[in-house]
């Protein structure tokens, strides 16, 4: 079962839009990762207020989200065991967005499509235990 909120994801039209939002909210990027599977640069803030993910699409479906305007996209819940949680949901009849979890740097992710939640995209997040195993020049 999910044990806590990991982050809230917001799609931004471009990097400039993400930077403007960060400035407005008084937040800074703590880490960022390009997720090839979703064609997006993902910027994470950290702090006592919680974590935001600002998603800057470079193409694909995310670039068309909300007719290209971007906006609030998903909530992400952290689980200890993504495979176990995926199995639990599939046993309940839920077809997750991905057959296998997607590597997104230090985390592994999958999504519960909004049809199951009446409009909320829910991302499931677990630590990526294999992250950092690659040779240094590849990181």
């Amino acid at each position: 079962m999910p044990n806590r909120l990991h982050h809230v994801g917001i799609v931004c039209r471009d990097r400039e839009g993400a930077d403007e939002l960060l400035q407005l909210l008084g937040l800074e990027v703590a880490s960022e990762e390009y997720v090839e599977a979703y064609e997006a640069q993902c910027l994470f803030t950290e702090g006592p207020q919680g974590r935001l993910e600002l998603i800057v699409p470079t193409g694909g479906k995310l670039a068309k989200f909300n007719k290209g305007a971007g906006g609030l996209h998903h909530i992400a819940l952290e689980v200890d065991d993504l495979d176990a949680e995926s199995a639990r949901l599939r046993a309940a009849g839920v077809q997750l967005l991905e057959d296998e979890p997607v590597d997104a740097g230090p985390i592994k992710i999958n999504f519960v499509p909004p049809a199951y939640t009446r409009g909320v995209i829910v991302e499931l997040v677990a630590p990526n235990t294999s992250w950092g195993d690659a040779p240094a020049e590849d990181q």
Partner: protein
Amino acid sequence: MSTIDRLQEVFRDVFDDDELTITPETTADDVEDWDSLQHVTLVVNVEAAFGVKFSSLEVAGLKNVGQLIGLVESKQG
């Protein structure tokens, strides 16, 4: 009015397209802007139009308009 005619009115309203024509074979790939989030908006409007309620698994399992027609009519029966 037949189920598909009433559904077509709902589709035209949700997708803001007065020329949109649906058939039982119509899928999300055939309608611009019919993505996973708009699918939920469509379903909520269909529920309101026909006075029925669908489960989340029913909503997620719909593959085309024909299945939606069948689901609506099964709820009305």
